[in-house]
């Protein structure tokens, strides 16, 4: 059988590794469920997932290329940068409140994404935050996170 996939790294292996990690953790955890009826479905689904992940590995290693095996992980670095900014934003909201963290997050992210018009960055950041306050807080009376210092 030919390994039709000539790339050095195939993301299917990474996917399978992640699935193994999750399924095996869940399977081990399911052994602590006392009721056998309650344990049945988690055990069956974990084992099914492990089998499917194994089939994926076998197919990737030994069988010809399928279109479904072509991945496009370019831009992963940019995605991780966005993830990091979003994470800092979430932490910022938790500490200093939505109304302070949001304009900072919007400004930094717009600049990081290549927005050169600084006036526009400031206007959008402030207008958006004001819009959220008017619509969600004043009009609908929804709870907007106020952070640990302001709540």
């Amino acid at each position, binding site marked *: 059988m030919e390994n039709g996939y000539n790339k050095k790294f195939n993301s299917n292996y990474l996917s399978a590794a992640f699935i193994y990690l999750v399924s095996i953790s869940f399977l081990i955890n399911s052994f602590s469920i006392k009721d056998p009826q309650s344990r049945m479905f988690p055990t069956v689904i974990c084992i099914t997932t492990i089998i499917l992940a194994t089939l994926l590995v076998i197919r990737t290693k030994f069988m010809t290329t399928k279109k479904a095996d072509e991945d496009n992980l370019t831009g992963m670095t940019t995605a991780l940068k966005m993830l990091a900014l979003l994470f800092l934003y979430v932490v910022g909201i938790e500490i200093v409140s939505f109304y302070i963290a949001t304009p900072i997050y919007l400004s930094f992210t717009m600049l990081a*994404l290549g927005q050169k018009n600084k006036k526009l960055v400031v206007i959008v950041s402030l207008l958006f935050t004001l819009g959220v306050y008017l619509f969600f807080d004043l009009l609908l009376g*929804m709870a907007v996170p106020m952070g640990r210092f302001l709540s």
Partner: protein
Amino acid sequence: MEFFQYAIQAATPENMLWLVIGCIIGAILGALPGMSADTGLAIFIPLTFNLDPTTALITLGAIYVTGAYGGNITAVLVNTPGTSDSVFMTIDGYPMTQRGEGLKAIGVTTFSSFFGGMVGAASLIFLAPIIAKMAVLFGPWELFLVTMMGMVVILGMVKEGVLKGLVSASFGFLCSLIGMDGVTGLTRLSFGIKPILDSLPLLPVVLGLFAVSQMFDLAATHSATIAITDSAIKGSPFLSKKEHKAMFKNNLRSSIVGTIIGIVPGAATTAAAGISYNMAKKDDPHPETFGKGNPQGLACVSAANNAEVTGALIPLLTLGIPGNGTSALFLGALLVHGLAPGTQLFAKTPEIAYGMFFGIIMATFAILLIGLYGAPIYSKITKVPNSILIPIIGSLCVLGAFTYRNLFFDTLLILVFGIIGFYMQRSNFPLAPFVLTFVLGKTSEMAFRRTMIITGGDLTSVMFKPLALALFAIDLILLIWPFWGDIKDYLKKDKTKTI
């Protein structure tokens, strides 16, 4: 005839004003990632305390109907479904937008949602008592078979990459089992994490998988705007007679499927969309175009979605059994206004019941106005630079996730599922099977186990009931149908070899 008499009575200036308010609020909340008709209902139910019950129910009905539609706009234009029910709109709607047909995509989803909503509303008004008798026949085994219907359609959706589709579905099923076991009350697979002791919450998971991952995708592609073509947004949201005719059969079939699924308590909108999509794909002369911007793919799920929403009110109003989670909020609204669902609602307060139906029909018409005349404005969003759009989507997602349960944990959850969703899409793991099994997994498990408890493990006592047999036959057909062409070809080849 009663309906028309009470509808005229309900058409007062005050009721019309509140109807307009409800439609606008519902559409906006439905479109915003993380918000939904549930949010609108939860906010407005207390605000309607002092209103006349008819006015209150007209307002809430308008939020309910337009809230279900609102998510379609952002799903189609920005690949960011406003609600979990709009997830299927992204499959064909967003590719249409990318090739500059955003206006047409809005037109298709608007008209089909209107079509589905009207079929659902007509069923509600004229067939409710008859159809409600069917809901009583649905026991746990029948519910299990319906959830299986929603899951076997996965095979039709992932024909080109079955293994990865099954992996995605299996992962979704696993995630659905996290939290409290619905039968015994024991907590499972939560690893002691308090916010998920009950279950992994649907909204943050869907927000992460679709909206946040879309953010990452837009950033990663480095494109200036969403629309790939530099030309202006092509076409018009108003469809031609030919286009309407081409979509009629699809819309009708999907609306009927959506209404029937809506009547079954516990069956999710996602199941209706999935089944309709599969049927439409199989029926299409060019099934390979599904998933690449085929308007029929967008039309069927839009019709099924809105038909399911109105269909779900049938068991609620006739039997007091909510057809879905949002209609359960409606039950609260009825009780708050001193109304009891069931035959008494129609016998003692027909002006309120039929007044509400009138509101729902008017809101369904409002979908046409909101969609068709608002389309040129909404579609401009595809021309907003991604450097501005991406952080705004991110902020709305975080806000939406937080307001769901007022928990910081949910905002972290959208990040986790955001990166998972991005990776899955880039590695060709389809997201729709994950969502289907995530939504239906626990329900199917509970239905199966309840059946085993009730029957003492002897399935033969329920398997051969007429409704159960009919549902099983449908499951079998849906399982084999996507592969029927291949099976026929294989048998032909075999015969030729033998000869």
